[in-house]
């Protein structure tokens, strides 16, 4: 699981959005000129494509037990076969679907909770801010994996939605903290004051005035949460808390470990799904970092040494 270091640095002041198209164009231009973003987006797009075209790419039915067991990689089986005679390459291709789905859905869910709690804390201020902030910090410090394991075991339902729910519950706090500090820095800006003087309702101000100014941070938080989701789901499935009959990279690792693939001389079975998890995670991490750089120009790599 990635370490996400929390600091209390003041949030960077983002420019006030003039119009919506201008913002999107600016973000697109900034992304295109950022090498990390290009690499990350390309990798992400690659996996999306594989997930969509899985039936075309995979040579065999991923769950059919039709081949000899533990075959080494060969022309017929690019990555060999599993301990129960399934084609590892086909499993890998089809597994992309569930792994990607978990990452995106859990990422979206966690981001939504972050926005809700982080922005309301900053906007409401006073005692509410103190309580919500404390709540966020508590969730930040609690070791999430044991918590996920306990909840997962109690529920005793190894379905996809449970897995996503558990990841959302444990994964929102980091983003909420970042959003709160940025929303705090926006709070007293003139355009918000103007909206208040106009007599706009709080909900309108938050949705149409505050949130558009935090777009790049929210996108960064989504990719950070998606990275967390990829790793958390893989970890939970690896120790057997996922649905063992589902097809995803984490489940493949679970079966590989259960069959002692490493010692049985079938390392590809372990290496391939792990490498996919790492690549998808890296894609999210790169995009997340690129958005941080876009929001905070000071972090960009120096063009030349002074």
């Amino acid at each position: 699981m990635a370490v996400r270091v929390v600091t209390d640095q003041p949030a960077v002041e983002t420019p006030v959005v003039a119009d919506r198209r201008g913002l999107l164009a600016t973000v697109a231009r900034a992304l295109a000129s950022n090498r990390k973003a290009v690499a990350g987006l390309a990798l992400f797009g690659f996996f999306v494509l594989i997930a969509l075209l899985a039936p075309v790419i995979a040579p065999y039915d991923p769950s059919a037990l039709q081949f000899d067991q533990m075959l080494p990689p060969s022309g017929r089986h690019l990555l060999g076969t599993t301990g129960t005679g399934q084609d590892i390459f086909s499993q890998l291709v089809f597994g992309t679907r569930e792994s990607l789905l978990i990452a995106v859905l859990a990422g979206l869910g966690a981001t939504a909770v972050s926005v809700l709690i982080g922005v309301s804390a900053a906007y409401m201020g006073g005692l509410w801010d103190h309580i919500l902030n404390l709540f966020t910090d508590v969730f930040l410090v609690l070791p999430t994996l044991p918590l996920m394991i306990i909840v997962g075991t109690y529920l005793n339902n190894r379905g996809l939605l449970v897995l996503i729910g558990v990841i959302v519950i444990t994964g929102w706090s980091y983003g909420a903290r970042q959003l709160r500090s940025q929303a705090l820095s926006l709070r007293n800006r003139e355009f918000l004051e103007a909206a208040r003087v106009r007599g706009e309702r709080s909900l309108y101000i938050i949705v149409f005035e505050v949130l558009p100014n935090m777009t790049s941070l929210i996108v960064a938080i989504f990719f950070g949460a998606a990275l967390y989701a990829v790793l958390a789901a893989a970890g939970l499935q690896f120790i057997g808390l996922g649905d063992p009959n589902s097809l995803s990279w984490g489940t493949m690792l679970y079966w590989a470990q259960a069959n002692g693939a490493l010692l049985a001389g079938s390392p590809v079975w372990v290496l391939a799904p792990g490498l996919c998890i790492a690549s998808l995670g890296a894609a999210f991490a790169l995009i997340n970092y690129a958005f941080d750089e876009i929001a905070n120009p000071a972090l960009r790599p120096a063009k030349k040494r002074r």
Partner: protein
Amino acid sequence: MSYLVRRLEFFVITLWAALTLNFILPRVMPGDPGQAMLVRYHGRVSPETIKAIEVAFGLHSNEPVLQQYLEYLRNTFTGNFGTSVTFFPVPVGDIIKQGLPWTLGLVGTATIIAFLLGTLLGMLSAWRRGGFFDAILPPAFIVISAFPYFWLGLFALLVFAITLGWFPLGFAYDLTTSINLSWDFIGQVIWHGALPALTIVITSIGGWILTMRNTMITTLAEDYVKMARAKGLSPVRIMLMYAGRNAILPNLTGFAMSLGFVISGAILVEIVFNYPGLGFTLLQAVHSEDYALMQTLFLMLTVAVLVAVLAADVLTAILDPRTREQG
């Protein structure tokens, strides 16, 4: 000392939250783990143990919740965690006592190494903006931080233990020897702990490098750094004593707050290496649906993280005069 008081408040509240979560979870979750345990235990354990299980899992529906809660708190603080199913009839407390030193030793050592090394590398990376370290390290560690801990552990196991045979396949010491304090035994512990520790260091160091670099970039732009340069101080002195020293504090706070993530990863590393710590025990508890053991493990891991956070807070209070000024 208002800073420390505020942090102490946080410590107490988080501890209370974890305790309460532990109390609520079995009561709101579907299924009836407590009843299942009672059936399994029937006639095998003392009436006191039965009572403890009933209290922990809320089987006294006729008692008011508040009374159950108070009794649960009293049991927890007196170390009465119930009996483990996995290691029947060993009390949960004893199992924790066996696993805790291994986890603390492994995770503690690896985390301190990662923090020191990461801070130093982050410092160098920010000092030479665009230099060798800065071009290679941050991007490399963004990618590595995306690797699952356990998978990197499996990879290390494959390369260094199975293929090369340099390190043992797992566990914390040779099972043929018993625990003692000889040099031979200490050597075994280091030799067995090297691969798991290396895995934790590699996956967690990136976070420290990145934050240290980013904070250091901010401090390097401060006036006192310009002043130090103008005075003609040596670059090493400016880097370590002026910019670096001031960038460490936020990093230390971040370090403490991130320990929960590190512990989560370390649990998986222990599972991969069959390391006899709390993480490995947790897996065994999951497999045999040993709820009492699972919940106590969660509590113990939380307490371990919280104590580390508090230690970092005290250290911050000692190092940063600003925390002492505000009365």
